[in-house]
């Protein structure tokens, strides 16, 4: 079991792992550093030590109130995720425990919709939104993001559910559980780790979604991804301000990810390590 690993190899791997992690994290780190610079510092070349000026944050906040897009982001990310779960749990139940000859095809077809560039359906969705008055509403974005992420949610849940022995669900049926009882009291509690990581991942995906949020909102329903975008072009290149806006936008999700990283990793590797 315990393989003998030499001390040098350990040190070598540790350095390598930290280097890779740092390279991946560096853009985010540099964004945070830049956000703490003044605008002059930011454009004066590469510099890792900022002056810890909060002027950019003040400027961003006074120019464009942070809390509205923040609350939009929360509502849209959480709302679309919960809605997706409500639809996906029964769907994944059916595919995992009552498969037909076509189940695999349906799964593949669902996934294939994610291979299409979103812009390909922009016009029809844009027109639907215009006609139904969903443009620039939270409801509209919740629906669109739910639909966009549904294939991934169904896939993830399907993979977790397949790990659950069908006999346990049959036992529940024999014990007099209705379909609703079976899903509510037996399947869902057993799949909690899988459902939790699906939930977290989907919230992150929805939070960071930028294409639809930018296309389908202007002010009222604009979430943080649109908030960042609003700093990127109109006033020329204000790097420090843009960085401050970005930092404010990603901070909540970064914190969420940090606290739930165990759950996320365990959930994402559920099938692999078992």
């Amino acid at each position, binding site marked *: 079991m315990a393989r003998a690993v030499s001390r040098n190899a350990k040190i070598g791997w540790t350095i390598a792992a930290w280097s890779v992690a740092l390279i991946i994290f560096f853009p985010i780190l540099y964004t945070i550093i830049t956000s703490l610079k003044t605008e002059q510092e930011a454009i004066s070349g590469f510099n890792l030590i900022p002056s810890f000026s909060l002027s950019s944050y003040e400027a961003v906040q006074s120019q464009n109130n942070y809390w509205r897009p923040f609350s939009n982001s929360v509502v849209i990310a959480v709302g679309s995720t919960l809605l997706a779960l409500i639809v996906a749990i029964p769907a994944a139940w059916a595919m995992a425990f009552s498969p037909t000859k076509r189940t695999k095809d349906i799964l593949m077809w669902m996934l294939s919709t994610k291979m299409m560039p979103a812009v390909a359906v922009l016009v029809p969705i844009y027109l639907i939104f215009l006609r139904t008055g969903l443009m620039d509403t939270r409801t509209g974005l919740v629906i669109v993001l739910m639909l966009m992420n549904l294939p991934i949610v169904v896939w993830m849940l399907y993979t977790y559910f397949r790990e659950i*022995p069908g*006999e*346990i669900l*049959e*036992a*529940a*049926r*024999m*014990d*007099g*559980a*209705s379909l609703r*009882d079976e899903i509510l*009291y*037996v399947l869902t*509690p*057993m799949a*909690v780790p899988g459902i939790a990581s699906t939930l977290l991942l989907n919230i992150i995906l929805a939070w960071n979604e930028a294409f639809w949020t930018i296309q389908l909102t202007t002010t009222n329903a604009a979430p943080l991804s649109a908030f960042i975008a609003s700093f990127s072009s109109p006033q020329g290149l204000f790097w420090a301000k843009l960085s401050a806006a970005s930092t404010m936008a990603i901070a909540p999700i970064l914190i969420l990810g940090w606290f739930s990283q165990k759950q996320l990793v365990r959930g994402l590797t559920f099938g692999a390590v078992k």
Partner: protein
Amino acid sequence: MGQITLEEVAKRFGEVEVIPPLDLTIEDGEFVVFVGPSGCGKSTLLRLIAGLEDVSGGRILIDGTDATDASPAKRGLAMVFQSYALYPHMSVRKNIAFPMRMAGLSKDEQDRRIEAAAKALNLTNYLDRRPGQLSGGQRQRVAIGRAIVREPSAFLFDEPLSNLDAALRVGMRLEISELHNRLKTTMIYVTHDQVEAMTMADKIVVLQAGRIEQVGSPLDLYLRPRNVFVAGFIGSPRMNLFSGPTAAEYGAETIGVRPEHIAISAEGGKWKGRIGVSEHLGSDSFFYVEETGLTETITVRSDGELGFRHGDTVWLTPNEERIHRFDKTGDRIA
């Protein structure tokens, strides 16, 4: 009550007919065992009765009412699975309470029945544990407890003991038999194990490729197997089967003699042979006699004191009154 009647019940998976139309009646209070080789459809038949699979044809009556299309929950049957199928996220108490919770029983009544079941099954000290913290035998008892508390009209068991070690299996076998004596509820029990089938059953159903070969009491099947298949399947070690001139001598296509109905002697007898393997269990000895020129090996069972060794020349004599005769189609000749 728990009378179960199958009328022309059939099951197909796609094109494959796993169970051709089949009739069977299980009387109220009976302990019925389904046996048969692996893949013969024992589990499928049990699952059809349970309602976990839909029939492809025929009717299932429970206490005279048509339950063919009823959901498992509505049939009033309880099932104990080979894998135990306990709810891993619930304590033992919650596991046992689950069917009562689904039935909407009062909390007091639930507690009363849980206490009674736990006492009967020696689970009182484990009620607050999770299934993961129990041994295999304890898990199986929880599964049985969960089945008992619903007071079903029949219990269905699918190889409930096959995951347990030999000693525990004997213990649980007795417990289930006692349970049946006490509750007098219909039980249908699927097993591979000869001993379980012979010792527990009021009635054994021998299946092959989804067809019923014979239904009868254990002794019935042992004494009067209806065909060659049942003759070879029931009894351990297997009955010795002979064909050709040996059988022709008795006016049959095939004859069978059980190992315990062959006398073995060093002096003389009907068939001559040489001892191959011998197994001495103390109470009995099994001799596998080769080079008889009749069949590959002849199995003989005799009392434990007999001391033949590998290579000894012996004489075998079948008990003429215990010879089973079968015709060309394999059916018993009366």
